[in-house]
């Protein structure tokens, strides 16, 4: 095995938040492959279970948590349950999102609140729930998987881009607040990414794909190894950062 032995999460417990995009299954499987036991939390039992099965398929322990997790009590209880069932909580991957593409003038107050809470609110609740334990144990790694709309604007995405920027800023502040307590928190920002993008030839008919320097859409697999890096102790000098993995979109004029 020529890969440095550094790249291991053996003995660690991770918690991944899942949504209907199915990305959490890829991330949970990657963490399990690197040696972690993984809990998956989300609204959809089907997607949570699918991610848990991927973990078990790697021979690691999985725990499923199904619910809305829309209050501090819910996320705190979920984090406690992970600790009691899997014996710890070392890694949090916030990989769920609430998306909305809609003209601002048509956006309702309910939609604004739902998007802000489903993204920024959720990321804060989960970070706080996991952070309670991580700060006490003096070690922990949190990764927020966000969109590069945290930095770039897009029409019909005012609430969504605001919510992504909020997560990025929260990440920076928490990195400073918890830095000396041994907790690391970073973002991975994705561009145009899909679980199963169409074949390359089909994709490249789109103006969007021809605009991307790497001329293809990304998949969650493109960030799986990075996720392992940011989840392990060997990234301990990396905190408060956003790593953009986006086929070059951010570098573009």
């Amino acid at each position, binding site marked *: 095995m*020529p*890969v*440095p032995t*550094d*790249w291991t999460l053996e003995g660690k417990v991770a918690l991944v938040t899942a949504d209907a995009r199915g990305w959490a299954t890829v991330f949970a*499987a*990657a963490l399990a*492959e*690197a040696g972690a036991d993984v809990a998956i939390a989300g609204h959809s039992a089907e997607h949570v279970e699918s991610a848990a099965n991927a973990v078990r398929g790697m021979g690691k322990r999985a725990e499923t948590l199904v619910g809305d997790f829309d209050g501090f009590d819910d996320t705190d209880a979920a984090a406690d349950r992970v600790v009691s069932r899997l014996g710890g909580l070392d890694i949090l991957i916030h990989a769920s999102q609430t998306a909305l593409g809609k003209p601002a003038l048509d956006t309702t107050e309910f939609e604004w609140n739902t998007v802000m809470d489903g993204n920024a609110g959720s990321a804060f609740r989960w970070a706080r729930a996991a952070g309670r334990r991580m700060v006490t144990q003096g070690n922990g790694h949190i990764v927020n998987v966000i969109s590069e709309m945290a930095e770039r604007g897009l029409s019909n995405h005012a609430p969504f881009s605001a919510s992504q920027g909020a997560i990025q800023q929260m*990440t*920076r*502040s928490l*990195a*400073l*607040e918890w*830095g*000396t307590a041994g907790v*690391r928190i970073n973002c991975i920002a994705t561009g145009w990414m899909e679980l199963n993008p169409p074949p390359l030839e089909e994709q490249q008919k789109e103006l969007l794909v021809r605009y*991307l*320097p*790497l*001329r*293809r859409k*990304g998949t969650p*697999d*493109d*960030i*799986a*190894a*990075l996720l*392992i*890096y940011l989840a392990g102790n*060997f*990234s*301990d*000098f*990396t*905190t*408060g*950062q956003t*790593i*953009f*993995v*986006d*086929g*070059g979109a*951010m*570098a*573009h*004029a």
Partner: protein
Amino acid sequence: MGVLDALNLDGINVVITGGGTGLGREMVRGMAEAGANVAIAGRRQGPIDEAADIVKAAGTKSMAVSTDVTDTAQVNRLFETVLAEWGGIHVLFNNAGIVRDEGRPPLWEITDESWRVGIETNLSSAFYCSRAVSKHMADRGSGKIVNVASGFGFRGGRDNYMYTAGKGGVVNLTRALGVSLGRYGITCNAIVPGFFPTEATNASSMSLPRGDLIPVGRTGFPREFGPVAVWLASAASDYMTGEMFIVDGGGLAGGMAPTGYGPITELA
């Protein structure tokens, strides 16, 4: 194929400039341990020979090529030498850079020569090396260029003109290379180190902050660069280009206050 298999560098030929010392040497070590063959370029033969020995100890091929990266004839010869010997170059690390000890003179005392050498070493060298290897990589239809920038590429440094401007140039050169070379299957990204005490910084008058002024409470360990170098050299980073990988203990995340600590207040 599993996720971690993508990090395997077996059979990957890497050229790294400034690979004999400091962060460069630790990146050499990390990539060799992951299976890469590493050609090390640097001005002084002693340090690059030592780095080559690290590669040999890891069981892969190495080469130490004495090179002044500000001299384009020497840069071109470096790549010709490696290509003649190994037949292909998959990855280039533009790591060479200098922090010169000039006693931090005021701006009006900085000479043309100081400016020129600082910009040539910290910025132009990355352009010269990328240019020299780009045709080869384009012909292969794949390649990875990794620049080493600095937190000073994003923020000002007191009495620190050539390094700050040069590294800022490296940041945007990275974006231009990423956007331009994607069509040939070549990616270009930059590692952005924060404060890592090395022989070079210890010997210079550059002021490194104390560890307790960095959000994680310490300066970096050079060995922390190994895993980052491996990831950027490997297929695991194939969808990243024109981007920065910042490893700085949280420094760039803050900046509002020296320690990053803000006052506690209640809702009105």
